[in-house]
């Protein structure tokens, strides 16, 4: 309960001012395509040089919290996921926005982020020592199985066809092999100098999601001039809250999945949203509505990616191991003031540690308030004519992919993948499974190679990957997940057969 004592520190004028700046700035940075939470936090580091340790961390913590949530804005309104965390949000969020329900989608996403985020921070407050042990339990073999588990959901993520979903996943995994391999340093498929570093995930995201959309918007603009007038519905916040309370299943699945995945070092928030989306789809009674602008999809994805923020800091704050790139940047923010995370942090600098954690709690609430305010403007975006919208999205896509690492090569990658995806989409493939393959490929590969190297030196591959309770549990979940997808596919096939005979 020590954390309550330090709440006062958060409400001093300077600290609260920084919290406001961090939150509002974070929302804006998060909504800008190409600026991932990691980049946003890194950009703010120089400002913390001149602040006290606790104040600097308040700024960074607030920015981290709100950039993750802010990514939902561009995901919903423009179909550009600001970061891998927001991929799943585009699936239902953008469809809702296209139907004129953008305001509702944004309200739901910020409210769900608040619930998930607060839960995640409470885990950080109360269960850190316990969770840090859990985080260490994931070695190479366990991480390999987690990645395989992720692969098993690739098929079910695409609502049209399992085979096409798996094929997109394969393309994604192939794309992930491009570049210097990180462990051995081997060169693979580097046929252009901009591919040396592999496919940058942010540039790929922008290309795969935004460009096909831009092309079809331009194509449509030629044929029918302003034929489409979207009715914009105003949506009351209370309705959104009521909707959220009706969807407790999606909310709790999202929050739980986000918290667990956030804890695992090296996997992080990249896949939290997608896994939560897939799980709540499997458990939902209205699973056929997912992908058509269904509120559960947004709620699950957004509660998951904010629930992961708190637990993702557990390995850093308790063990001094940064579990995610963003945590690594926060580590820099601590070191610059001579504070070492680990047990030392809570014993010798409790004021810094607890003020930081408390500010994340308050930051979640501020993020939600400002987010809802932004949502009230968002409806106007859909009033923009399509041709103008296409130009804006294209501009943002170019800007976003360039700004990731100031490289024109990333722009080429973005454009190539985007144009390729446009044709793939016409054949019924979708971008989400492809991106999941792109994210999971390296995790599976690196951990398999590393695990094999350890196994070769010790007790052999079979024993290494198939012993230990956690390994066996994960293998069992993988088998269940495959079995479930197969069963769903078979039963849906027999359904259509029945329909065919009765009609």
């Amino acid at each position, binding site marked *: 309960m020590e954390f309550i004592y330090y709440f006062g520190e958060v409400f001093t004028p300077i600290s609260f001012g920084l919290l406001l700046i961090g939150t509002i700035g974070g929302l804006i940075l998060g909504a800008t395509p190409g600026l991932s939470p990691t980049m946003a936090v890194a950009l703010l580091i120089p400002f913390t040089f001149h602040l006290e340790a606790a104040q600097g961390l308040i700024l960074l913590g607030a920015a981290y919290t709100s950039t993750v949530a802010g990514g939902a804005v561009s995901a919903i309104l423009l179909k550009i996921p600001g970061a891998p965390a927001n991929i799943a949000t585009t699936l239902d969020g953008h469809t809702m926005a296209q139907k004129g329900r953008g305001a509702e989608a944004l309200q739901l996403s910020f409210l769900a982020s608040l619930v998930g985020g607060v839960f995640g921070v409470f885990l950080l407050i109360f269960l850190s020592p316990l969770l840090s042990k859990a985080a260490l339990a994931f070695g190479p073999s366990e991480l390999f199985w987690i990645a395989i588990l992720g692969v098993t959901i690739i098929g079910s993520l695409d609502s049209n066809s399992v085979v096409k979903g798996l094929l997109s996943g394969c393309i994604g995994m192939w794309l992930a092999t491009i570049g210097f391999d990180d462990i051995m340093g081997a060169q693979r498929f580097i046929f252009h100098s901009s591919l040396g570093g592999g496919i940058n995930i942010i540039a790929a995201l922008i290309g795969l999601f935004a460009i096909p959309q831009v092309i079809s918007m331009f194509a449509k603009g030629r044929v029918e001039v302003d034929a489409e007038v979207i009715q914009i519905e105003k949506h009351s916040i209370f309705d959104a809250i009521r909707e959220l309370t009706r969807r407790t299943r999606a909310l709790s699945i999202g929050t739980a999945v986000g918290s667990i995945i956030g804890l695992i070092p090296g996997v992080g928030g990249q896949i939290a949203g997608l896994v939560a989306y897939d799980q709540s789809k499997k458990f939902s009674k209205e699973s056929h509505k997912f992908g058509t602008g269904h509120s559960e999809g947004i709620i699950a994805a957004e509660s998951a990616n904010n629930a992961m923020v708190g637990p993702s800091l557990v390995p850093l704050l308790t063990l001094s191991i940064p579990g995610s790139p963003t945590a690594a940047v926060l580590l820099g923010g601590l070191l610059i003031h001579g504070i070492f995370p680990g047990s*030392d942090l809570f014993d010798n600098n409790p004021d810094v540690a607890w003020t930081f954690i408390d500010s994340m709690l308050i930051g979640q609430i501020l993020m939600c308030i400002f987010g809802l305010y932004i949502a009230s403007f968002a409806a106007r975006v859909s009033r923009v004519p399509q041709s103008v919208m296409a130009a804006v999205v294209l501009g943002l896509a170019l800007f976003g992919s360039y700004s990731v690492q100031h490289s024109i090569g990333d722009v080429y990658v973005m454009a190539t993948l985007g144009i390729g995806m446009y044709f793939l989409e016409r054949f019924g493939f979708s971008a989400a499974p492809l991106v999941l393959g792109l994210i999971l490929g390296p995790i599976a590969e690196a951990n398999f190679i590393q695990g094999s190297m350890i196994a070769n030196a010790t007790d052999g591959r079979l024993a290494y990957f198939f012993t230990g309770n956690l390994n066996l549990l994960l293998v069992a979940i993988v088998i269940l997940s495959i079995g479930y997808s197969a069963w769903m596919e078979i039963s849906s096939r027999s359904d259509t057969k029945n329909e065919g005979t009765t009609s």
Partner: protein
Amino acid sequence: MKKLLAGAAIALMTMSGVASADGHANYPERPVMMMVSYGAGGATDFQARIVTMTAGNEDALGMPIAIINKPGAGGRVGWNWFATQADNDGYTLSAYNVPHFIAQSIKGGVEYSAASFEPIANWGADPAVFVVGADSDFNSMADVVAFAKENPGKLTFSGAGLFVGHHIAALQIEKAAGVKMAYIPTKGGGAAAMKAVIAGDVLGGVNNLSDAFRAAASGSVKILGVADLERNEFLPDVPTMMEQGLDVDNSSVNFRGVMVPAGTPQGIIDKLAAKVPEMFANSRVAGKMKAGGSPMHIMTRDEVKAMWAAREETLKELLAGL
């Protein structure tokens, strides 16, 4: 788009043309960019931001230095870009990590060698150390070597990748002790390698002194030896490898500093070589570096040149058999 790009390129060329015409007396006239070939939040990025924070002061460059990250493939992406595409007008600097880039250029597959770059000054030296988990049975390098002799190839130990300082230290330890051990390169840098040691995935590991110092302070690891010529001020109680009978010199020490692409005008190189070491010596910089547990080691351009040449020779010999 093409016209715009061409226009921008012409504008850039004329700008650099002006800069070289006036004999560099006014250099720098605009903010300078420094490329770091590792991600934001890594040790190199973190230190680069600290040592350049006073660049805007009148007694330093008088212009701020902006850090740009081009991470990927253990630094190869950034250095490839720097060697082939960066402007050599003095407005594009880069951080270097020795032995990393020299070892990579010896192994091949990259577009640079030591001759592609001109060193300016060195700011830090982070030796490799050997760490084991806090509850490990190993208490000295002798224990490690004894275990490795009894179980050839079975002692697993992690490091941040192949052909980086950690790997060089690992090779040197194996060679000096005459044993075969299992070096496990991790993806995700020193932090991932350290996690593997703390979690018990591996029996030991080679890691940065600065990171190991922190992990040891939090009670998660023991540090058994330093791969450097002398003991380090951060760890006065930890003996060097040499003291423990292993013939390991400072070849694996991770030297960090600033360089420019070859072909940068001599006037600018001279000016930078004079100003930058002074900038590193600033007391505010030293304070922040010490607080963060990052060992400083300032070297001038001539000293760095000699160090690069010496490293190249040892590394060629060490990596010849691989």
